[in-house]
């Protein structure tokens, strides 16, 4: 693999016109990745999901260079109906459409050809990989006091031409003071066995509001890693909802720094997994100043031999008095061969805080099934009603009612 990496990296440099400084930066990232390689279970963060092994098991002859010179066709049929929205469309990692028809043009700024400016020593080998291979990245700024009229949907599409590739994407979103954005990320994959590595950076300034809904529900054999980095200033709110369901493997890592007082972060997630799927949510919520709040609720329904992992960490700095931190995870295991791992972690250095965590898992309640069947529902209907009921309260946490309905439809929770 190292040889392939080197060849592909040189190919990338050859075929792009990065500045000298930029090439240097990329090389530095590349060298760092080569040194560390893909993460494996010996790293605490990856102990439930050995990515190195998962990649070598699922992807034959992974290669890293993508020719982004030719445009890709967009399959319009996958666009979401019945919800007016702005669009950003990536196909196989290449940006193909930027459409902000509903917005005032001077209230947003869109840059789609940014290159790396400085070295970020994050000690995350997948970010090194991303920084080394990403050709250019995308940045959206929402200007002061502006709330986008309509949601933005980022379509992350891969088509069947894409096989055994590593795709890297980087998207920065800046919300200036008092601004707000509803962002849906919608994945649609017709490709096979790729490693998709996505890095989002959200910068939430004072009083800004981010609602971010990530939907991955169409079945595919790709391996995905998301690194979501969120930095929040005073009184800002981030609301994240994850529907983690379709891809063979996903690890969604959410690193949220609550830097300003009264900042709050909500992470709600649903795993709906079957077959051999293996998904993880790893959060680091860092309460760094006083009076910040975080809330996490993760529910899983696992079938066949699927596996879900939730590692939720709440860190409370000694300065962060009056922190309110909560996390809960619940899982229904439909099959004895499924696996659910929850590792809650509280690291608290302040004394006046309110933090709690809890986790439970179990099979579907047969008594409840019997109750429903005694009222005329067959086993399948009873099971579905119970599962929907179990998942409903997470979905109800979505504060945007239009998007909540959309997601209920996608999850067939509509009653």
């Amino acid at each position, binding site marked *: 693999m190292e040889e392939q990496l080197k060849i592909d990296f040189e190919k990338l440099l050859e075929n792009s016109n990065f500045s000298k400084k930029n090439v240097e930066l990329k090389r530095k990232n590349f060298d760092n990745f080569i040194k560390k390689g893909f993460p494996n279970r010996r790293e605490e963060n990856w102990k439930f999901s050995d990515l190195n092994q998962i990649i070598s098991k699922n992807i034959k002859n992974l290669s890293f260079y993508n020719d982004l010179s030719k445009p890709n066709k967009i399959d319009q049929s996958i666009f979401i109906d019945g919800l007016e929205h702005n669009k950003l469309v990536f196909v196989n990692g290449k940006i193909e459409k930027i459409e902000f028809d509903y917005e005032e043009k001077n209230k947003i700024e869109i840059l789609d050809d940014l290159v790396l400016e400085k070295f970020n020593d994050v000690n995350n080998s997948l970010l090194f990989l991303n920084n080394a291979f990403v050709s250019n990245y995308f940045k959206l700024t929402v200007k002061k006091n502006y709330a986008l009229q309509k949601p933005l949907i980022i379509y992350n599409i891969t088509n069947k031409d894409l096989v055994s590739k590593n795709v890297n994407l980087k998207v920065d979103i800046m919300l200036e003071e008092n601004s707000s954005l509803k962002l849906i990320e919608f994945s649609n994959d017709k490709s096979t066995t790729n490693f998709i590595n996505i890095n989002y950076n959200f910068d939430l300034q004072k009083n800004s509001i981010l609602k971010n809904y990530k939907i991955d529900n169409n079945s595919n054999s790709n391996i995905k890693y998301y690194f979501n980095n969120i930095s929040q200033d005073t009184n800002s709110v981030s609301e994240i909802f994850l529907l983690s369901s379709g891809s063979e493997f996903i690890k969604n890592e959410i690193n949220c720094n609550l830097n300003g007082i009264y900042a709050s972060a909500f992470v709600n997630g649903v795993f709906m997994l079957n077959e051999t799927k293996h998904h993880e949510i790893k959060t680091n919520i860092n309460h760094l100043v006083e009076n910040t709040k975080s809330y996490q609720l993760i529910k899983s329904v696992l079938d066949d031999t699927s596996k879900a992992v939730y590692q939720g960490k709440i860190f409370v700095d000694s300065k962060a008095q009056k922190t309110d931190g909560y996390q809960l995870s619940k899982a229904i295991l439909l099959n004895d061969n499924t696996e659910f791992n929850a590792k809650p972690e509280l690291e608290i250095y302040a004394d006046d805080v309110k933090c709690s965590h809890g986790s439970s898992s179990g099979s579907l309640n047969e008594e409840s099934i*019997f*109750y429903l069947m*005694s*009222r005329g*529902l*067959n086993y399948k209907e009873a099971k579905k*009603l119970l599962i929907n*009921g179990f998942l*409903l309260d997470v979905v109800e946490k979505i504060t945007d009612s239009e998007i909540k309905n959309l997601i209920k439809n996608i999850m067939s929770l509509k009653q």
Partner: protein
Amino acid sequence: MLKIKNLKADIENKSILNNFNLEIKPGEVHAIMGPNGSGKSTLSNILSGKKGYDVSGEILFENKNLFELETEERAHKGIFLAFQYPLEIPGVNTNIFLKTSLNAIRKARGEKQLDAIEFLKLVKLKAKDLKFDEEKLNRQLNVGFSGGEKKKNEILQMSILNPKLSILDETDSGLDIDALKIVADGVNSLRKKDNSFLIITHYQRLLDYIKPDYVHVLMNGKIIKSGGPELALELENKGYENFN
């Protein structure tokens, strides 16, 4: 309507029912009384098709072998069990559950399914009869319901589904005096020449309101004595210990 012959039921190698016999004809109301742990709920569960029991013997419902029917098929055929401990089902709206249930049964019987408006009309009417707070029907099924409200909800379901054989497993326990009267009225209004009831209770009081045709005493896995309503009074005076 219901014929139970030589029913034997074990759970985890423990014998619960043994040589249990009972026949209920259309329109009849039978009451079963028996000490705690004597197998009354076990009998109800077996009639509704709950799994996990070792059973032998025969149960015929309208001449059909019940053991060949799944739980939902028995419901379709008109068997209804009001649970001793109704379950809480989080996330499932009570109205939607009721509608799903009613339409599943109507569909199985080849009847037209009710649309939302027809259904709400029916539910409103039945809820009013039972003095059941309609607002509660928009809540999650039995979640946060009081003990008595859960029991009333069972009777509401019964009156909506209009079953042929209703088994009431200690529906009276936990009901206040007014509620008891209302529930009894609900049962009485369903009493017709081809609707039958099996009423399990510990208290004679309920039987003042719902006059049974027969009272049976269940002990040691079988019915040890049957009689008319006066048997309930006798039991109340003597207790089980000194019965026999």
